[in-house]
């Protein structure tokens, strides 16, 4: 008989999302550093005369240490502690962080070591939570948008890599030649950049310059940033399926982007 019991003790984790469950409990989607995505019931954490402290800790965007146990299909949260200072996110950076959580909810595997992505998530949230002063002139506003976008693009790129769908950013697929900065390419899904326009419509046009900048994680240029966004968005859709990302839709609505 297969033993389907799981016991995780004092694991580094974050909360990705939670749902109300019965009157005073929650079903919580955790991202456990060396296990991946996993759900557990947090009993009696909502409402009057309950473990209020736990409900505060179950809010997303805090670094936690959790213990979970029970049958795989019905894990129970046994213990939860805060392990460090919380990320201070507000406004746009908060909505960006929600986007990261939704990507992870949709794509993160279970039963696998995800420490690499966990520390990337940590770094990116730290970048997003840096105090960006609200500036009014147009130049600084654009600079601010770039400050939000660069961390998101790096996260998307590294997440695809981690999932085994890393982008080919170095060689043309027909000739095997190195990417040249001043050429235009057609990125073919699951293959890479191609010199010749493919016959079917499943490709994403991208400049050699953007491919090189992405490879070097140099995303300061506006054109590079815009093309990277298109390429990564298109690559993610292949793995996310038809269901659109809700947080992205809402971000567009909220900030008219």
């Amino acid at each position, binding site marked *: 008989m297969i033993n389907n019991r799981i016991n995780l003790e004092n694991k580094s984790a974050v909360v990705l*999302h939670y749902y109300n469950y019965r009157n005073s409990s929650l079903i919580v989607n955790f991202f456990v550093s060396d296990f991946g995505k996993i759900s557990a019931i947090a009993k009696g954490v909502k409402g009057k005369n309950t473990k209020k402290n736990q409900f505060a*800790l179950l809010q*997303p965007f805090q670094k936690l240490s959790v213990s979970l146990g029970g049958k795989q299909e019905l894990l129970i949260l046994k213990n939860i502690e*805060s392990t460090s200072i919380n990320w201070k996110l507000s*406004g746009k950076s*908060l*909505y960006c962080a929600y986007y990261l959580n939704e990507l992870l909810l949709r794509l993160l595997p279970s039963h696998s070591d995800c420490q690499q992505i966990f520390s990337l998530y940590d770094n990116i949230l730290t970048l997003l939570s840096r105090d960006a002063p609200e500036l009014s002139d147009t130049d600084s506003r654009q600079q601010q948008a770039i400050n939000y976008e660069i961390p998101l693009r790096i996260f998307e790129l590294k997440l695809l890599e981690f999932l085994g769908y890393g982008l080919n950013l170095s060689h043309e697929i027909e000739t095997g030649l190195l990417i040249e900065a001043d050429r235009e390419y057609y990125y073919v899904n699951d293959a890479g950049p191609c010199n010749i326009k493919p016959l079917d419509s499943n490709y994403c046009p991208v400049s050699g310059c953007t491919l090189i900048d992405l490879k070097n994680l140099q995303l300061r240029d506006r054109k590079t940033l815009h093309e990277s966004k298109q390429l990564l968005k298109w690559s993610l859709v292949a793995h996310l399926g038809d269901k659109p990302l809700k947080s992205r839709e809402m*971000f567009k609505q909220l900030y008219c982007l």
Partner: protein
Amino acid sequence: MAHSPLITQLIDSFRCLPGVGAKSAQRMAYHLLERNRNGARRLSHALRQASEEVGHCQTCRILTEYEQCDICQSPKRDRQTLCIVETPSDVYAIEQSGSYHGSYFVLMGHLSPLDGIGPQELHLDTLKQRVEHEDISEIILATNATVEGEATAHYLMEMLKPFTNKITRIAHGVPLGGELEYIDSSTLGHAFNGRQELK
């Protein structure tokens, strides 16, 4: 022994109430049928009437069977202060505190980016129109101290900023009777950020 179909239906119906499991549903059903048929009739009448007639106040969206609720009709309330909350229960909680005499708007929820609950679902257009057309001197954002409550407050702040001079957020921090060493670090962090000068 199995319950008859009508009794089973009654027991199952009670289970839609929060905190009522199979055992207590059965106890309620048998109590009404054995000892209090009149109470049962009153209950069924009240349930039917309320569920059919109670809707939302057109001004603040609180639950009421009238076009406008008591609070919105009352001449004693300060109409220049508007407090925005997530649920009708929040209104009752604030009313019980006795420390607020302005008007309300009930969102009937909060923005939830991962569940697809956005500005339309919360009727934020109604709110915006109201703030645009009324003379409001202060808007108090009293959404919950959850991350989603924060996200909602931030969005409302951005949306309502052009129409009023003063937007405030209720303070959250150390509860009455709270001992600092037992308070979680994020609550304590909020309490420090929202500290006030003693005068």
